[in-house]
């Protein structure tokens, strides 16, 4: 029997509305109310003075690139980056090579997770075969194989008919659909937000309306079918407004925002820096502020990183030709502390809620809380420690981050999964 006693922490568990000085007790990987006197004596003790202890962070949108793109990231390296960022549960997207549209590929991913992951990694499956938006993937078999949601992430299902049938069908298995909201016909060749900056830079623009249209479509289909549709990485002001209008109606619509969309805008693109190229693109200050207000009032349910690794040589080219996506896992907590707590006066508990309990609830995961009986997935971070992120020194296999060489306040000190320390002070311990 293994026991653990985390002492003197500021324990924040939004799910149980706990925020205060206290201890955490773990027996055999499960959080318990207390330990016996004898257990206390022999327990492994961690002095968390000056640290916040919160549930291990949960990210329901990452790309770990396995199978087929292991030169960018693997489940092993991605999960280490996650652990270093304070994450204990992540959900990876199915746009691998081949796409995770069949049970064999899901089994391959599960084997890799079993073998290489240092935190809890959960797979999603595709909505359609080959993410082509035409024939439905074997959604029931995917569910049986262990996927927690289905999505054609990156290749938003364009046909309303296909999306309607997918939603109806997935509802039978209580499986949420996650949708990257983008009308492809309006965004051919686009590489950045459409607006003043794209006009100035002569780059092809991606209009907000292309997101707003699919957000509306998904709200309508959720209402019509009763299925749960999760709207991925919302980036447009009007999309936030559309979701807000319909949240009251109790449709099963949930949504997420990324750290980069709440921290950065398309103004930063005048350098044509491909570390700022992602999809959906960075938008304007109005959009950025709308996302923050959406997170504040609960319109947007959670923060997800869309951690999307690409190698240096893939990113190091003409802006038009560089792939979309940036790293997120190792910087998300620090960016959110800066943008939401420091600059926008969110409470620490609120931000932790958006990064733990809320995302876990969206997919019904057994994660994101420190309540008794929950797995002892814990993040210890120092909210005042200054540190400089060097993307090349990170745990991800890639280094495509816009925050390279940025100094942050607030650093993950230790990450525990099922009561075991997997990351501590800059080192992975498994």
């Amino acid at each position: 029997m293994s026991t653990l006693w985390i002492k003197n922490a500021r324990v924040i568990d939004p799910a149980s509305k706990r925020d205060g000085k206290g201890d955490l007790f773990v027996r055999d990987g499960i959080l318990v109310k207390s330990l016996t006197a004898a257990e206390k004596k022999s327990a492994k003790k961690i002095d968390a003075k000056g640290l916040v202890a919160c549930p291990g962070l949960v990210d329901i949108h990452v790309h770990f690139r396995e199978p087929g793109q292991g030169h960018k990231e693997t489940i092993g390296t991605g999960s280490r980056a996650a652990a270093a960022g304070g994450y204990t549960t992540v959900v990876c997207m199915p746009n691998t090579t081949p796409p995770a549209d069949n049970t064999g590929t899901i089994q391959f991913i599960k084997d890799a997770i079993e073998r290489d992951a240092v935190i809890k990694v959960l797979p999603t499956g595709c909505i359609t075969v080959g993410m082509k938006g035409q024939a439905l993937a074997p959604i029931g078999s995917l569910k049986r194989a262990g996927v927690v949601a289905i999505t054609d992430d990156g290749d938003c299902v364009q046909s309303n008919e296909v999306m309607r049938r997918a939603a109806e069908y997935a509802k039978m298995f209580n499986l949420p659909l996650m949708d990257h909201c983008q009308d492809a016909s309006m965004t051919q060749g686009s590489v950045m937000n459409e607006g003043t900056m794209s006009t100035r830079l002569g780059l092809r623009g991606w209009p907000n309306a292309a997101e707003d249209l699919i957000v509306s479509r998904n709200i309508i289909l959720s209402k019509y079918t009763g299925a749960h549709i999760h709207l991925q990485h919302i980036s447009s002001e009007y999309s936030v407004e559309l979701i807000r209008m319909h949240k009251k109606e109790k449709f099963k619509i949930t949504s997420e925002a990324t750290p980069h969309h709440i921290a950065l805008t398309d103004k930063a693109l005048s350098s044509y820096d491909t570390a700022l190229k992602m999809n959906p693109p960075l938008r304007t200050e109005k959009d950025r502020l709308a996302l923050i207000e959406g997170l504040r009032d609960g319109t947007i349910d959670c923060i997800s990183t869309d951690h999307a690794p690409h190698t240096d040589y893939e990113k190091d080219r003409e802006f038009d030709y560089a792939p979309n996506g940036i790293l997120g896992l190792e910087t998300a907590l620090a960016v959110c502390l800066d943008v939401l707590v420091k600059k926008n006066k969110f409470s620490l508990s609120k931000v932790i809620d958006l990064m733990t309990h809320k995302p876990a609830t969206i997919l019904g995961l057994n994660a994101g809380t420190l309540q008794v009986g929950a797995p002892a997935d814990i993040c210890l971070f120092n909210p005042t420690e200054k540190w400089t992120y060097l993307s090349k020194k990170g745990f991800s296999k890639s280094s495509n981050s816009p925050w390279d060489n940025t100094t942050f306040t607030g650093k993950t000190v230790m990450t525990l999964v099922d009561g075991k320390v997997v990351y501590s002070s800059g080192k992975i311990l498994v």
Partner: protein
Amino acid sequence: MPWTRKHLLTIEELSLDEINQIHATASAFKKILSRNVKKVPALRGKTIVNLFLEPSTRTRMAFDMAAKRLSADVISVDAATSSTTKGETLRDTAQNIQALNADMLVIRHAASGSPLYLSRILDIPVINAGDGAHEHPTQGLLDTFTMKEHFGSLKGRKVVILGDILFSRVARSNIHALTKMGAAVTLVGPSTLVPHAFKELGATVSHDLKSALADAEVVMLLRIQHERQSSSHFPSLGEYTSMFGLNRARAEWLHPKAIIMHPGPINRGVEIDSDLADGSRSVILEQVSNGIAVRMAVLYLCSGGLPEQAIAGA
């Protein structure tokens, strides 16, 4: 004031002084071009590589000519003959050019921002000969040079740019140059090709040809770039011509002394009637000739030449 810029990437980043300096140097070089011996030794022993990864006739020939008039050795590489067709990256191609001891790289590329990208990688000067829909600085410089030859100062003069602005690097470079020089720029064309975001660049946006052309002293026509746009930007070339094509009747709306410009290539009968293109108000071929002098000035200044000496040499 000495010239300090190593690269010419955009007009947006140039000061009015720098624009004037290029123009002054160009007018000195222009005198050389009408001599018997049309050559100066300014860049003797230097090698200039023209890397044109997108089709071009005028710009490429003008850069070629300009380099030769300055006695530089010139190598021109285009997309079909470069290793980019074998999958070589732009970085590798450019680094190889530098390793072959080129002294300057002139780049034309379909992707906006490519010259800036190369300027960060290479030690040698990089000259932008047109990048995507972003900028075509030497075109903006030669266009404003041509306008200055006709009008002297451009301050307060009404310049209309008519046509496909959205996809035009020529328009962007001219907007930046003209606004810095104090001209009043009006952009006109169909709303799908002249979005209102251009107002933030300091131009007036109009979709009414008559009021836009009224009293304009310069009208610059731009080609409809079929290769860059989807079918949904406007119904047909016929409708474009009927709504926005410049013909004899519409040219009457212009200022009596107005000039008609076009960066080429012209689509006769689409954006401009054939007889106007060849008519007395057209300065289209003057633009082409001035392109050599302006590019000589740019190559000379960016390779470290002193403006006073260029003028003295002429």
